[in-house]
């Protein structure tokens, strides 16, 4: 089976005044298509930097990333944008919904960016919201929703363009236990449906939910595991 993610020797260094720090240091990962991975680490372990490199949001200082068989290093900014739009769905800790758009419009946004007409986009957005249990919130703006609901809208948005992989950065970090559980269940469903999930978390407990686990510490791989 082909790998959805293939990263080799990823390094990301930052200039910090006179000194150079490595946020990610020589990390290599392989994740077969349809499988999921939890990247676990404490604060400052470099897990978010790694997600940025794997998600095509940032370029590595050295090393190479392949997502769905495409070398992200070889794509220019424009091509990378289109690639992210089609192949990757992001879920952020702070949801990052546009508060001037309704739940439906937020979910439809990646489709609109992809050039779909708004009617088609809204229809699919409504279906996705139904899938995450928010059919009653279709026309509500984020301000009227709970954190859990907002995160489920964000997940629906991540699914908009039928991505191959969902990259979630501490998606439960801002939620209470019940909502966190709910969100994780939704993500589990997604994983079960064959979409890969890359979960960034500091919560060791989560490792058991995913086939692959990668422990990061100070930018280096501390431990790799496969179920």
């Amino acid at each position: 089976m082909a790998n959805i993610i293939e990263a080799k020797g990823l390094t990301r260094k930052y200039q910090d005044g006179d000194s150079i720090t490595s946020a990610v240091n020589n990390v290599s990962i392989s994740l077969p298509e349809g499988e999921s991975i939890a990247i676990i680490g404490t604060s400052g372990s470099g897990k978010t930097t790694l997600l940025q490199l794997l998600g095509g949001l940032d370029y590595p200082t050295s090393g190479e990333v392949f997502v769905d068989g495409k070398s992200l290093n070889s794509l220019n900014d424009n091509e990378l944008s289109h690639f992210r739009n089609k192949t990757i769905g992001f879920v952020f800790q702070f949801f990052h919904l546009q508060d001037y758009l309704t739940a439906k419009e937020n979910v439809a946004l990646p489709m609109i960016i992809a050039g779909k007409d708004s009617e088609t986009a809204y229809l699919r957005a409504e279906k996705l919201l139904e899938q995450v249990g928010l059919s009653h919130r279709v026309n509500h703006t984020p301000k009227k929703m709970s954190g859990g609901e907002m995160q489920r809208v964000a997940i629906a948005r991540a699914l908009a363009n039928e991505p191959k992989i969902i990259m979630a950065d501490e998606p439960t970090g801002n939620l209470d236990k019940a909502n966190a559980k709910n969100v994780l269940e939704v993500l589990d469903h997604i994983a079960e449906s064959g979409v890969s999930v890359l979960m960034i978390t500091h919560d060791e407990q989560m490792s058991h939910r995913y086939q692959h686990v990668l422990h990061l510490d100070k930018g280096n791989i501390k431990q790799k595991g496969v179920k």
Partner: protein
Amino acid sequence: MKFSYINKINLKKLKLYRGKSLFLIIPITLLMMLGILVSSQSANIISASEEAILGTAKEQSRLIELSSVQTAGGPGANEGFMRIIRGGSSDYKAGDLETVKTINNVESASLNVAVPIDLAVSGDLASGMEVSIGGIKGLNENLAALYTDQDFDYVEGEPIPIILNANSLAYQFEDWQGRDEVTIDFTQARGQRGMGENIEEVQSSLPFKTEALDYEKDDLVGSVITIEFGGLADVQTFEQEFTGSGILFRKLTDEQIQTAENERAEAIDKYWDYEKIKEPISYQFVVAGVLEADTNFSTYIPEQFANKLVKEYIQNQLDARNDTTITTDDLNSVYTGMTFDGLELGGSGGGTIGGFGAVGGVGGMMRAPATGAGLNVEVDAAEELQDTYAIPGLVIETEREEGDTDAFRSQMLGSSGEVIGIYENTSVYEEAVKTSDTMLIKINNTENRSQVVKDLNDLGFAYQDLNDLEVFAELQSTLNNVTTVLTISFIILSAIIIVLTMGKFVSESKKEIGVFRAIGATKRDIKQLFMSQAIMYTLIGYLFGAALGILLVLLIAKPVQLWFDGFIKNTIEETFAVVQNTSAGTFTGIDWQMFGIYTALLIVIAAVVSIIPATRASNVSPVQAISNE
């Protein structure tokens, strides 16, 4: 991303972040409003000065009014009074006219000869009151632009144009306040009070009142009025007596008035048909202008008509004459220092071809004052002030000068001279040497004005240009500068406002930009998103500003007009007695040209300068989206 959806997003942002969007919308609104307001009113003032002032003044600036009276009279001063003060000796004569005509670039020149008819009244100006029209002068039709912007040609059979003078638009009436006698005691004047207060008190005690005519210039101009010339005024209805410390005015009884009327009829009947001479001749005039400056006290009628009027007036009087020869004895009874038929005449004389009426005196204002060149026929030596009448056709030569064929002086008080005849026809006026205290000069070209003024001064004609046109040129240049400065400020300010506020929006939207970029928006999408926002908000500001600007232009039209009229009054009217009226409509005009320029500028500026913040926005890294700060 489709452009329509980008606009939809920005509209939704506008709806939610109304307060924030006002940071851009309000300054643009104010800028646009100010732009339209200032440019429109500047354009309106410029066009008002061009059309209303320079349009008039351009023609007027080719005209110069020379005045031999160099002291401006105050309100209420009248032509006759001015003439007494200077004695008429400095009046311009035919020789002066010829001298002026020799000056280079003088196209034509004309004397404004006073019409020697003093009893001219109109009953159409104040209801129930007769307003006497004083200081009538003939005005050359080609030179009338200095006083009116209306047609001033005399066309037989049509109402004759007349330029009235506000200084003489007053009517008199008697107000005895139930008394039969009024004593004015001059010893009551008190030193601690000002002279003005003392005069005011005397005036308020007098049974004769003068009321200034209350008129609307706009209504008066264009109206048709009838003016009666000559004839006889009602006989004086009172008598006065010097008391030593003042004057006593006593109302006459109906019987006494009738007696006075009979005495007058008897005196006049000796040489004229009384009933015929009593009837004035009347003409219809159309008011072509009203002079309101306090430096000019003349009423103007077309020169061509003035000649006709005087001749008809003389003819009317000559027609009323009977065959009785006026004797030298009668002449002798009223003149001194003058001779006729080789005999020295006694008494004091009038100077013009006269109308009938009482000579001057305190009570004279209720009668037709005789400034006529005529012989005053004394009816009763004891009541000389009230009962002397002038004889038409009497020609007095005074200060005869070389080149003068016959003398005809519009001189009120002539203490010396020679009565050279009593004319039997109207040629007396044609042959007379005409003089005037004003002379109108037309220059062939405005540019030569200062040179002509210099040449006039060199030839001894006092004239000082007030350079009003320069004031207007300055005003126009200032307003043009204002518009230029405004346009440049408009460009700079709108650019700064858009760059700064959009820059602020971009800084505050980094997360949003990051999310858009993370979920696939390209740099181009982000650029379009912010450029569209800048243009949309600018256009909203533009629409509000344009509407408010237009509204304000309309609202302040009247105050601007008032200011403008005041400005004209304080400047150009001092040299040019008449300027075209401005209407409030002149100041409601919108400068559509500048409106279009501002619209185009604003759209171009918004599109161009918004590239700066929009490019900054597009360079925001998608990493921003997932930074958890």
